[in-house]
């Protein structure tokens, strides 16, 4: 059969269809607000970000890209200033005489951008919602200190035929017994046990208030959240998935974080490289993630348009206690030897170009209560002779099993390979043992092995603070049974000091206990503190000034546009 007229038509239709689908999203391409009007407080700035992983509910957001949006959309009882100091925001006062029973006075006359009033009850309802296990909020455990949390967050565990346990929500109550709104302006909180630093965490996003619409239908609400913060969604559907989120100034906001620009458009990038190029051509205004090859050049590429500030993160090299080479007295000496064998100073300078500095403790210096020179912290110095000596001593007690090289597990993306190679070389040269990176393509693989206690060697570990408190860097990571204590380190003495610190009457007293607890960590060395990090940011010619907060998040509200 010849190619007939109908079949020709068929072909044309198919081609036209292809072209039409192509046109679908084409026409409406709008300018992204990068007009060059000068000195405009209403100018919308553009910022680097990526697709948030969850609907934008504060208690459900536990990753940075959703977190930065949520922090701009909401205002909590307290907020943190640039140095990490907690200041009252929606709270008029927060008081407790025994660190267990707290009375919070809520500022009156505050509203969500949909007009709904914010009262003491708003907070109580929001917190009960977040803590309730059936609502599956990622940050639900932030309410664990409140009396009655156990009932609200209860779960059922069933063991399947294959021996795996499955956990399903089974709350026994709707409301935490320790949380009450006695009138419109008063919240009373009873904690399960005294916690001196409890009020510090009230600025964390899990504690933000939610309007009633959010509690009724969290999923729908999370697509178009309504808050009470310095910014609000520009319109319904401002979150264009995989592309951008546009926020505009909330004119009714009257707190300390008032916006100095007209709004923020978060542009999503799957890779920091293109964002850096966009910044060089003023097509993007600010980024806090630099491609690793730009770490050496960003100061020259953006003279007077960059800033680097310390952030509250920890990074350690963890040594699992189940490794036979690192058990008992010999293991203790070996852990010290490993620590002495790492030249932190040189690696920070050469590999990280000075964006990191050697660690001085198990908590970063930007945190209130940080103390340098804690007893035992001399193991953080580089001392190859001492390292060799300690290693030899350990060998006398119990010979080192050198049948396999000492492996350091890590995912190799994100520039981890370079510094781990350097650390492994330090072990090789200074201790005379074989050491190497145990590479993984993905972070998830390492995490799985850590959780199931199957790592053959050491592992890299990191922790970023949720709220600026010394306890937050010790409790969740090293306390017995804590949520991020994957290597299952346990020392009752350490646990007790933490508990004592929480029960202390004043923050100073509490911090003293926490620093005492660090002495135990330095004795046991379940992990070797490596470095403190600084976060470099760069900005475009459209911006006059920008800075980051205590946790490395850019203070978007304070950015002024030219």
């Amino acid at each position, binding site marked *: 059969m*010849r190619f007939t007229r109908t079949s020709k038509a068929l072909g044309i239709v198919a081609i036209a269809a292809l072209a039409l689908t192509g046109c679908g999203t084409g026409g409406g391409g709008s300018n992204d607000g990068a007009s060059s009007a000068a000195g405009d407080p209403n100018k919308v700035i553009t910022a680097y970000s990526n697709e948030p992983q969850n609907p934008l509910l504060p208690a459900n957001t536990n990753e940075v890209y959703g977190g930065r949006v949520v922090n701009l959309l909401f205002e909590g009882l307290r907020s943190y200033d640039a140095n990490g100091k907690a200041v009252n925001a929606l709270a008029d006062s927060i008081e407790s005489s025994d660190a267990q029973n707290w009375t919070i006075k809520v500022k009156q006359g505050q509203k969500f951008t949909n007009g709904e009033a914010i009262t003491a009850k708003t907070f109580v309802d929001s917190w009960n919602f977040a803590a309730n296990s059936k609502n599956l*909020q990622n940050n639900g*455990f932030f309410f664990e200190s409140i009396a009655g949390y156990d009932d609200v967050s209860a779960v059922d565990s069933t063991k399947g035929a294959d021996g795996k346990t499955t956990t399903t929500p089974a709350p026994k109550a709707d409301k935490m017994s320790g949380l009450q709104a006695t009138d419109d302006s008063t919240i009373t909180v009873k904690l399960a046990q005294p916690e001196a630093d409890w009020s510090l965490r009230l600025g964390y996003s899990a504690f933000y208030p939610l309007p009633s619409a959010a509690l009724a239908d969290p*999923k729908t609400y999370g697509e178009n959240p309504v808050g009470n913060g310095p910014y609000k969604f520009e319109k319904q559907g401002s979150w264009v998935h*995989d592309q951008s989120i546009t926020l505009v100034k909330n004119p009714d906001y009257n707190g300390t974080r008032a916006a100095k620009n007209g709004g923020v458009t978060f542009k*999503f990038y*799957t890779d920091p490289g293109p964002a850096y190029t966009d910044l060089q051509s003023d097509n993007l205004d600010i980024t806090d993630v630099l491609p690793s090859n730009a770490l050496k050049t960003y100061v020259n590429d953006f003279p007077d348009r960059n800033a680097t500030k310390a952030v509250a993160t920890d990074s350690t090299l963890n040594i699992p206690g189940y490794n036979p080479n690192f058990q008992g007295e010999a293991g203790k000496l070996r852990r010290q030897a490993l620590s002495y064998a790492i030249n932190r100073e040189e690696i920070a300078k050469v590999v990280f170009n000075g964006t990191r500095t050697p660690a001085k403790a198990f908590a970063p210096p930007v945190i209130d209560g940080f103390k340098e020179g804690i007893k035992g912290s001399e193991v953080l110095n580089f001392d190859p002779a001492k390292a060799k000596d300690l290693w030899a001593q350990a060998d006398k007690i119990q010979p080192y099993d050198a049948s396999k090289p000492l492996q350091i597990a890590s995912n190799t993306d994100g520039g981890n390979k370079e510094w781990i190679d350097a650390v492994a070389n330090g072990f090789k040269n200074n201790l005379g043992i074989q050491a190497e990176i145990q590479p993984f393509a993905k972070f*998830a693989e390492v995490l799985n092995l850590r*959780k199931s206690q199957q790592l053959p060697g050491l592992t890299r570990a*990191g922790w970023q603070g949720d709220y600026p408190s010394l306890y937050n860097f010790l409790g969740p990571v090293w306390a017995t049974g804590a949520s991020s204590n994957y290597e299952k380190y346990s020392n009752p003495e350490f646990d007790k000091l933490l508990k004592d610190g929480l029960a202390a009457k004043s923050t100073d007293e509490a911090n003293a206990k926490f620093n005492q607890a660090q002495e135990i960590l330095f004795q046991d060395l379940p992990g070797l503190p490596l470095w403190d990090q600084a976060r470099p940011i760069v900005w475009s010619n459209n911006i006059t000034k920008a800075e980051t907060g205590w946790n490395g998040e850019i203070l978007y509200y304070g950015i002024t546009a030219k």
Partner: protein
Amino acid sequence: MIRFILRRLLQVIPVFIGTTLLVYYMVFALPGDPIAALFGDRQPPQAVIDTLRSQYNLDQPFWVQYGLFLKNLFTFNLGNDFTGQPIAASLARVFPVTAMLAVEALAIQAIFGVAFGVFAGLRRGGWFDSTVLVASLVVIAVPTFVLGFVFQLVFGVQLGWAKPTVGANANWGTLLLPAVVLGLVSFAYVLRLTRASVSENMNADYVRTATAKGLSRPRVVLAHILRNSLIPVVTYLGANLGGLMGGAIVTEGIFNVPGVGNKLYQAVLRSEGPTIVSIVSVLVLVFVVANLLVDLLYAWLDPRIRYDQ
């Protein structure tokens, strides 16, 4: 003719099942727990993880997972990805963008490739031919990502002729730069194919006949030489369209194009089986349809080709 089309469309079924099964299995075999990986160092309560796992059927054996996926696919319910977004909606967002990019790149390589190829082929050994041959060799030798970065730096940053990235405003204009980068390598191949084919057909009997009949030179070139020379070119372009739709991961990454390649890359990073396989399913359809169109074009280009019997 109709039977031919039907037969070709029926072939989609085994191809479809084979590719989805293979891809689904490969994602399934990836090590690590994708749900735990979503959260990194900050693990949510175990109930959240377990609920997500059963929501995405990750607690089921492979065949059950795959079966449920197929069932959902045939009831036009692709489900949600791990961030809770409907997969169908994200496909509807990314495919038009990539289709635009692919069509633009295809147009660039087809128009310029064929035009340059014809000129080069007609005057084989001339200065134009030699220059173009060397130039195309250079283009083929340079990897796409190098070309991408260089174009981005020169035209996007230094000269400022185009925006260096696409981002949220994907339209024919902003996609031009990535389309040029994407189309350039294939442009060189199209050019070389056309040139070889044209110079061969120039000495064919029917061309001499056409010239002897007194037809004008343009008519001889366009209707007789070019039309008969296009078969290998069209075959190549058809196969290329499938590649452009799915394989532009590098280019989409460099220019931050919110298209199929970027989505696929992220889905692979997250071990999101359903998203990956949904994208692959659409790509299979695109590939099959594109190649069917190519086969139908053969008959128009060369009337000697028949489909039935």
